[in-house]
């Protein structure tokens, strides 16, 4: 592993910042105590945990007691959906979501469908946008929850969350948003944006893996996903992961103070990358919305080639990217997100997601595009689909 790697997969996970590691360290060893214990040292740790909670509450514009720590984004999503489904089962059994949610949301919904719930999976347009009007039309008298992601993990599209939340509230329905990709990258004000519940994950913003959170508006009653001890105000059992939470707090503190500059840097490089790719590599589709998208995300489909081969060759060139979402690598199905925005199967197979960070340089981007160009060419020269296409005169 001597050669330098260019990491373009920040949507999959991010490097823990040294300041975050430093903040966590004491809580493994000297201050390893259980924050729920009676003794004073334990209480001091509990106070640090609550400081992290406050930092995050400030960032989201909510109260500290509305922030609940979990074991990750997937747990938060499952909790939101199953917890509301259970708590409101007397009120209704209908949930509205979209076709481009993360599997943590869609599979939780599918599980509920097997247990007597009804789920509407809304279509999106070619940019991956959910239409708030479609949300409104889908609401029925038995609708108990609307869950629409804040920003998509594959194509980066940012959804009209505020408008969807407004509609939800107009109809007295709860609104949850999976903000795992957006949190720490986009300014989020849960009050202003009409968000009742929000999922986030530390490892997507330079915090540790295995720590997530859910914001739950204080007026909401939700059943536990994990029952047991009285931690997290009785709403999420399990010995408090003090080190992880304190690391999460530090990561948010840093993210909050660098939000704008990161966005600008990423936008500039991302846009440069996209322009070059679209100009220099023919038969390429740029996925997602042009403007309403995460600043660090670029998503392409290269016709006639297949994603895994592309990734392997990029890897050999020292470039880390992803095809579809990382959780699904190794699966043989093309991304449900790309299919939902209207990519035909064989084009969806040739997808590449490159997600940069504040550490990415112009050189990294140019090196990546240069390599990518050659790799796409090489794979196309091996592709029977490309052969047919050229023989047919380059027209479909």
């Amino acid at each position, binding site marked *: 592993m001597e050669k330098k790697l260019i990491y373009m997969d920040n949507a999959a996970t991010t490097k823990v910042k040294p300041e975050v590691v430093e903040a966590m360290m004491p809580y493994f060893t000297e201050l390893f105590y259980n924050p729920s214990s009676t003794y004073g040292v334990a209480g001091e740790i509990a106070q640090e945990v609550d400081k992290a909670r406050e930092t995050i509450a400030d960032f989201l514009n909510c109260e500290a007691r509305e922030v609940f720590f979990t074991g990750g984004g997937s747990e938060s999503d499952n909790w939101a959906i199953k917890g509301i489904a259970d708590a409101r089962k007397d009120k209704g059994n209908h949930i509205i979501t979209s076709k481009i949610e993360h599997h943590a949301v869609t599979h939780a919904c599918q599980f509920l469908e097997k247990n007597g719930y009804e789920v509407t999976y809304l279509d999106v347009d070619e940019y991956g946008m959910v239409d708030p009007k479609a949300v409104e039309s889908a609401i029925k008298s038995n609708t108990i929850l609307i869950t629409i992601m804040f920003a998509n993990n594959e194509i980066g599209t940012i959804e009209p969350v505020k408008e969807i939340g407004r509609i939800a509230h107009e109809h007295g329905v709860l609104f949850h948003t999976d903000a795992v990709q957006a949190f720490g990258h986009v300014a989020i004000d849960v009050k202003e944006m009409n968000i009742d519940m929000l999922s986030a994950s530390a490892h997507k913003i330079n915090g540790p893996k295995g720590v997530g959170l859910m914001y739950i508006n204080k007026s909401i009653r939700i059943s536990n996903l994990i029952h047991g001890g009285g931690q997290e105000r009785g709403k999420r059992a399990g010995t408090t992961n003090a080190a992880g939470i304190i690391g999460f707090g530090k990561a948010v503190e840093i993210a909050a103070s660098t939000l704008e500059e990161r966005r600008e840097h990423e936008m500039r490089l991302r846009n440069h990358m996209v322009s070059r790719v679209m100009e220099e590599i023919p038969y390429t589709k740029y996925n997602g919305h042009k403007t309403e998208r995460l600043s660090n995300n670029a998503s392409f489909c290269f016709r*006639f080639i297949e994603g895994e*081969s592309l990734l392997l060759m990029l890897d050999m060139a020292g470039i880390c990217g992803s095809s579809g979402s990382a959780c699904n*690598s*190794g*699966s*043989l199905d093309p991304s449900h997100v790309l299919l939902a925005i209207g990519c035909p*199967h064989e084009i969806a*197979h040739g997808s590449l997601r490159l997600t940069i960070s504040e550490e990415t340089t112009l050189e990294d981007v140019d090196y990546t595009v240069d390599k990518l160009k050659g790799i796409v060419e090489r794979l196309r020269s091996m592709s*029977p*689909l490309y052969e047919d296409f050229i023989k047919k005169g380059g027209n479909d």
Partner: protein
Amino acid sequence: MSQATEYSKKVMDHFSNPRNVGEIEDASGVGTVGNAKCGDIMRMYLDIDENQVIREAKFKTFGCGAAVATSSMATELVKGKTVREALEVTNKAVMEALDGLPPVKVHCSLLAEEAIHAALWDYATKNGISIEGLKPPVDDIDETEEFYEMQGE
């Protein structure tokens, strides 16, 4: 799981330096199997002499690392063999020659076997020969694939 570490060295070698990529003009037999929907298409070209010996084999593949590697290995394995011998180049033989494949990728080796058969079928049809044990290629191999996917956990 990471493909790069799940693949054997042999697979990575055949993926990064695939043997026999390309086309053969006026090939004795050409077979294309798989479909783009499933993410794998293999096309195999065979140049077969009058003694039914495979003089030359080439391929083009749209697919994952394992699809490329199995295609490459399959062409290597059939080269120099008689048509009858080539029929015995099974998916197992391809897999073994590659030091194995991850369970989810077993179907690629099957595809390679089918590509050989399809090219041989084309050759047999063109030349009015019947090759014992050779079945016509299936049009859509979706079903078979799914079966093999399930095997691979």
